[in-house]
């Protein structure tokens, strides 16, 4: 989850988010190199110790400073083009979860075996226990198995919301009348957080997302218990 004075991404737990963060890190390095080079050149030119009055044309120099930026751009676009296709790959999912946005809570539906549906409300500040994060704690969290491809379908009951978990690298708009699909394969168990990311009314900031990622055996036992009884939380 986010921490105080965070300057970079949350740790990615899906290969999608790890790849994207790797590419971003690489672009930052290239950016810094270019920035340092340009600043150095500017300072050099402003120092006044060099004169170029004898040079009118230099075609070779122009060829170099035309092609080198082009090659840098091609180098930068290489991972990006690969990512574009890798992120859209569809593997065989084993779980489908529907995240339905309401004003102002999320409803999660698991209907692979039987209809299991529950609402996830934010816990108000005066009901928080010691150590629980403010504006993030929910009464019932979404559960997913790890190392399993999960299909996440987002839609909305009323206005546009957006379901996101930064650690997964997922942000999917929940638009009424539309069923947006995203694919997630979480690689490690744990608890991951997100918040509604599309303005949806007065309590837009108060509909968080909490995902608990557990083993496949525990997940299937949890689903079996849920479908055979009403979950009191």
């Amino acid at each position, binding site marked *: 989850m986010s921490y105080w004075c965070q300057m970079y991404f949350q740790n990615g737990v899906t290969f999608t988010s790890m790849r994207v963060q790797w590419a971003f890190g690489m672009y930052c390095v290239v950016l810094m190199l270019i920035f340092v080079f340009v600043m150095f050149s500017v300072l050099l030119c402003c120092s006044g110790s060099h004169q170029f009055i004898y040079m009118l044309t230099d075609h070779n120099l122009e060829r170099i400073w035309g092609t080198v930026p082009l090659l840098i751009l091609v180098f930068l676009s290489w991972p990006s083009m690969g990512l574009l296709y890798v992120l859209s790959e569809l593997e065989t999912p084993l779980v489908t979860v529907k995240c*339905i946005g309401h004003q102002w809570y999320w409803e999660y539906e698991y209907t692979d075996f039987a209809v299991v549906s529950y609402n996830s409300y934010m816990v108000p500040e005066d009901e928080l226990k010691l150590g629980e994060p403010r504006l993030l704690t929910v009464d019932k969290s979404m559960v997913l198995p790890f190392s399993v491809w999960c299909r996440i379908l987002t839609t909305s009951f009323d206005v546009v919301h957006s379901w996101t978990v930064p650690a997964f690298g997922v942000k999917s708009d929940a638009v009424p009348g539309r069923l947006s699909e995203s694919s997630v394969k979480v690689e490690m168990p744990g608890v991951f957080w997100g918040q509604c990311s599309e303005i949806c009314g007065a309590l837009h900031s108060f509909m968080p997302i909490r995902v608990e990622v557990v083993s496949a055996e525990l997940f299937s036992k949890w689903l079996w218990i849920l479908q055979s009884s009403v979950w009191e939380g």
Partner: protein
Amino acid sequence: SFIRFSGKYPEHTHKNDPKAEELLSTAKFDARFQMCNQDKACWQNYVDYFRCIKKKGEDYEPCNWFKKQYQALCPGFWTERWDEQREAGAFPAKI
């Protein structure tokens, strides 16, 4: 290290956990609907299921393919509305 230089990962990391494959299953990929928006997939499987059981009878097993697809994909409040429309004779598709 877990994060490789080239951003490439071994092939087996794309596969599901084998133990999970015995326990879990869901709607399969439908090549008719490859885009991000799956509302038509939900709708078409719903309609195909009821057309199938109308033509072949409720005991015809292959119709359950469409049922599993639409149950996994469709939100509950969509199917409830469509069930009410079917019962009222106002469903906007010919079954």
